[in-house]
């Protein structure tokens, strides 16, 4: 049985200006011990997806449909109270900005103790010992002293470590990290990514990493899901996505990545235009207004939404171009530019 399975998950928000389709039919599987990287621009629906899995849209204005199966339980139709009891214990989350994500008025220790004691009936003393253990485990020096510090007394990297300690305090089986390194210095980013890789191995948790940074997912992910306009547009093993990407948007993401091993004279290949408005999603393929190859499929992209189809061995692509065309374009037009 698959550990985490999303089936056609839709999360829509009714607003005064119209229906915002933040997540529009997303499906994927994830096993224990594996890492999935969800990649996309701001507004592509990645964070909404993660909050949706945790059930944090329940009771709000969001209209949610589809299925989220976690270890044999369906969560979309489950009661909010039941999903709450799973949050923090079975599944937990690491947020982007650890300064704003931690309560400024409580000590780091208190916040970890609180997270631990919601799901474990233990005394404060035992919980505090556990908090100190966790802080030590994520590499915070002198954890027995730092446990009584406030978040503002920590550096950015230390705060993110503390946040990770908090998320892991109840041994979650599913860990979602939403842009875990975006707010950090580059040198600290690498440390945090290393830490997450080590901890995932120790805890054997399923890990979802949400980011706009392909470099981060390259470090950690087994599989990669590329989101655009609330939909999955390419999905596959990390090697496939990096070696044989087939969607024009993924090519764009790869082209936008600064690389140290490339000649400095070479310009980046940014994607033209801006991410689509989720209220007025472009007709047909949501990417067509920005797609350089849109004319080659005879204008189909303007009216028809392409299906997500398998091209080879679990590698899925949502594009009107035929498999041969895509491979040809990648091999002759895109890859040489990226490698030059």
């Amino acid at each position: 049985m698959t550990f985490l399975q999303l089936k056609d998950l839709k999360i829509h928000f009714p607003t005064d200006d119209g229906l915002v389709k933040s997540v529009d039919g997303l499906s994927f599987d994830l096993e224990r011990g594996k890492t999935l990287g969800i990649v996309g621009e701001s507004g592509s629906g990645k964070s909404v997806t993660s909050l949706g899995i945790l059930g944090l849209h329940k009771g709000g204005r969001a209209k949610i449909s589809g299925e989220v199966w976690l270890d044999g339980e369906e969560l979309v139709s489950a009661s909010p109270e039941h999903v709450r009891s799973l949050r923090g214990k079975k599944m937990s989350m690491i947020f982007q900005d650890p300064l704003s994500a931690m309560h400024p008025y409580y000590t780091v220790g208190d916040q970890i103790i609180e997270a631990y004691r919601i799901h474990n009936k233990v005394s404060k003393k035992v919980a505090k010992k556990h908090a100190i253990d966790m802080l030590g485990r994520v590499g915070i020096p002198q954890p027995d002293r730092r446990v009584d510090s406030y978040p503002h007394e920590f550096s950015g990297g230390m705060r993110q470590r503390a946040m990770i300690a908090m998320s892991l305090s109840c041994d979650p089986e599913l860990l979602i990290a939403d842009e875990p390194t975006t707010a950090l210095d580059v040198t600290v980013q690498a440390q945090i990514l290393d830490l997450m890789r080590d901890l995932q191995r120790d805890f054997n948790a399923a890990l979802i990493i949400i980011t706009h940074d392909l470099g981060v997912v390259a470090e950690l992910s087994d599989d990669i899901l590329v989101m655009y306009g609330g939909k999955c547009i390419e999905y596959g093993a990390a090697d496939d996505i990096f070696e044989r990407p087939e969607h024009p948007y993924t090519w764009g993401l790869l082209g936008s990545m600064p690389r140290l091993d490339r000649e400095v004279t070479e310009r980046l290949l940014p994607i033209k235009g801006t991410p689509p408005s989720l209220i007025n999603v472009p007709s047909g393929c949501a990417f067509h207004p920005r797609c350089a190859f849109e004319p080659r499929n005879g204008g189909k992209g303007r009216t028809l939404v392409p299906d997500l189809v398998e091209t080879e061995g679990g590698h899925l692509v949502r594009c009107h171009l035929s498999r041969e065309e895509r491979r040809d374009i990648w091999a002759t037009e895109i890859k040489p530019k990226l490698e030059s």
Partner: protein
Amino acid sequence: MVTYIIRRLIGALAMLFIVSAVTFSIFFVVPRLAGVTADDIANRYVGRAATAETVVAVAEKLGLHDPVVVQYGRWVKGIFVGADYDYGSGVEFCPAPCFGYSFVTKQPVWPDLMDRLPVTLSLAAGASIIWLIVGVSVGVLSALRRGSIFDRGAMIIALAGVSLPPFFTGLVALSILSYGLGITAPGGAYVPLSEDPVQWAYSLILPWLTLAFLNAAAYARLTRAGMLDTMGEDYIRTARAKGLKERVVIGKHGLRAALTPIVTIFGLDVGILIGGAILTENAFSLQGLGKYATTAIAAQDLPKIMGFTMLAAFFIVVANLIVDLLYAVVDPRVRLS
């Protein structure tokens, strides 16, 4: 933390000193600039029937011809150690804290102020508790049910509360509840707490509600805005992601942060109120500090006005000090800076 407290204490003392200097200047120096002479002031003490010689003699005895700084020094000294006053009918010692004698009643100012203080304290204590509880509860509920009928209704009533002055709401409440239905005490009926606690509360319930209505409305709006802000914070999302019950998310994580500015304003409001709830006391004919001040101002009774001003300033400065210290307790980030 200790240096923080010491710094605040020094600041508070400096503030009181400045207030005393400004008060003294306004009441003694500015009138001189406008042409009021020392003899005119002395005249206020001895009354209209006095001869010109008596007035000059009294002015001399009271030291009204001395340089301003000397007079200010004497006034401040009187507050700390007491002072001798001579109105031409022999020397009288005015014990500390001495704010001089009333022009009108010839009585020392300080004991009068202390007589009035319990009334204002009673009014402030009851009203502030009511408005804090009601205002914060309504604000929290409104924020959590934003856009609901409760929220809209509460905010319309709050708008009315903020806009309607107590001399209007107080009089309407008096005429309906007290003189019309007879369920509350009439205006001016104050019974000291030490005599009869039940009668004390009964005599004050209407002024409490009137004053509380005004402030509860403001607090409801403030709390609502603060809660809406706070509940959108990232750390609230974190609290939910931990699996906390919504009750705890709101009560522990949300309210704690939203209440910080409320605590600040509450301290200041209570401080100001103890210095006299002028409108409410007048509407209900309560003989508190506010009423004392309006009477003194109407009679141009300078020593009374100055005494009242210093006392009110004292309460506001003390309230500020308490708020500053409380702030450090509530928000750990303040302790370091």
